[in-house]
């Protein structure tokens, strides 16, 4: 879908992308990076709107430097910022955008009705956009990116400004864009947990450099951490402690989940296959405690960032902030 080869973008004072080489296949791909990591710059280059200083990139097998228009006909783009005029209805706006993508008038109307329904806008689509909630506006933005049935969509921070429910709905929608619509997705975010749930593949960039590119399963299943919470009983006034001691006795290292919500009541341990689950179950049953929860805490993508932060120097970080100004 997307291939870049030592792609660099330098502005007079900052380097937004630094010899980035990455391959993205079909499916949902997350592009993760802190603000100013070069995500928006990368999308701009991939749309053929901004020439790269060095290196080359291909989208759908087309060179971005020479085939920009052909690429833009086949991809959709949902920007990060507001981009909707308030005084027209969603239908009118999306029809217009469909025609801008080259769809004949009748097809533009049909596709608009279909697409708005798929993103979850019904009766309200005839009302002016000015009265929409943030969640509805995000849906209209998504609809205009999908209306011409692209092969690939770039979604820049689609969950920005949404409440937790809206966020979940949007992520579900993004997942469906691939599974139901058959459209590949490149979605950016600085919230890592989100992408972990939604994406097949995650590309992490930082300071314009590729930090890591691998499938989400690789990211999250290298270690499985179990979180356990138990009840207290009269016999064991501090159930958590009792479980920890019992597990220690069986030779399992347990940490308390300090720093997590409910710290002091949560135990974290590394699961070594099926046996660990059984062991935990037995230990708790023997103590006669109630098991409130036992869940897999997936190794968070955030930890990838932790490693990199230690390496990068502050100075670099300041430069990146300026890159945001240029990038937008």
């Amino acid at each position: 879908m997307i291939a870049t080869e030592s792609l660099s973008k330098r502005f007079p004072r900052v380097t937004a992308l630094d010899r980035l080489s990455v391959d993205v296949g079909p499916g949902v791909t997350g592009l993760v990076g802190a603000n100013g990591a070069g995500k928006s710059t990368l999308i701009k280059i991939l749309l053929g709107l901004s020439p790269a200083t060095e290196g080359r990139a291909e989208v759908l097998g087309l060179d971005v430097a020479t085939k920009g228009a052909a690429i833009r006909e086949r991809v959709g783009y949902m920007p990060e910022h507001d981009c909707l005029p308030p005084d027209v209805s969603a239908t009118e706006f999306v029809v217009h955008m469909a025609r801008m993508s080259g769809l004949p008038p009748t097809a533009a109307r049909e596709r608009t009705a279909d697409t708005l329904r798929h993103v979850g806008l019904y009766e309200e689509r005839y009302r002016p956009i000015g009265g929409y909630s943030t969640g509805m506006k995000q849906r209209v933005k998504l609809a205009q990116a999908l209306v011409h049935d692209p092969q690939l969509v770039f979604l820049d921070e689609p969950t920005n400004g949404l409440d937790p429910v809206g966020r979940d709905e949007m992520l579900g929608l993004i997942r469906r864009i691939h599974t139901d619509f058959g459209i590949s997705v490149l979605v950016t975010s600085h919230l890592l947990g989100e992408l972990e749930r939604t994406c097949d593949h995650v590309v992490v960039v930082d300071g314009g450099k590729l930090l890591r590119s691998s499938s989400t399963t690789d990211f999250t299943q290298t270690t499985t951490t179990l979180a356990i919470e138990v009840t207290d009983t009269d016999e064991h006034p501090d159930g958590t402690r009792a479980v920890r001691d019992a597990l220690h006795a069986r030779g399992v290292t347990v940490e308390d989940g300090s720093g997590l919500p409910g710290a002091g009541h949560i135990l974290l341990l590394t699961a070594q296959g099926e046996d660990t689950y059984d062991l935990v179950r037995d230990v708790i049953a023997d103590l006669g405690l109630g098991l409130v929860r036992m869940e897999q805490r997936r190794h968070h993508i955030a930890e990838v960032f932790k490693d990199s932060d230690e390496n990068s120097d502050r100075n670099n970080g300041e430069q990146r902030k300026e890159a945001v100004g240029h990038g937008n």
Partner: protein
Amino acid sequence: MATEQSTRTPATATGDTRIHNIGYRSYDGPRLGRSYARLSLYSQSLRGAYGLGRSVKSKVLPMLLFVVMCVPAAIMVAVAVATKAKDLPVDYTRYAIIMQAVISLYVASQAPQSVSRDLRFKTVPLYFSRPIETADYVRAKFAALASALFILTAAPLLVLYVGALLAKLDFTDQTKGFAQGLVSVALLSLLFAGLGLVIAAVTPRRGFGIAAVIAVLTISYGAVSTLQAIAEVQNSGDGIAWIGLFSPITLIDGVQSAFLGATSAFPGGVGPSTGEGVVYVLFTLGLIAACYGLLTRRYRKVGL
């Protein structure tokens, strides 16, 4: 992509008797590309300049101005027919000059709505993430506003012409005058559209855009005609023509009095000579080109 093909085809061929198929349908129809998109943007903007396809409220002003433009022409025609006059009370070329306030008002109200909205609400990136490019956008918007202005300024001329023919005035004379009038308003439309769009494109807030366009058009005209009047009083006749270069409406006035047989509205009724007229034409065309250039530059910067 092999697996995607199967998910993309709706499951209607499987023989199950489902009535509703609300699954995703892919689009295999034609994609008409850049020139079609440019044309669509042109027609949408042109319609928008008269409030068509927009709210009722935004139809009021352009339609009202259109009527205000045409009514005097209709009255003149009625008078000419009734009194069996030998000529129309006003030349074709003079009409736009007389009605310049209405034209300015129209430019001031419609240029910002055409471009400022896209800038203000950041819709521009959505256009440029599609096949059309900066030049397409600028050309479509420029052409749309110039066409809208041409409709506004040519319609009353058409009324005059039809009326003149009904009043059985001399056909050759009237046709010549009408043609000269059309050339003049075409030039005026391009110039005013260019100036209006450039000003509107640098003022994303619509209110400021309107004020700025009105200010530029009226202040320049006011300043130029004052200076011309002073020059007239001081008998420096040469100065009058050169001063006229500095306001759009006197520029058009100069061009048409030099080449399109119009009587000048300059003080003393003396328009530019042929030599000065050439400068006027070059200056006008240069200004239109400059507006186009500035717009293209502006939008190259706006980008995403």
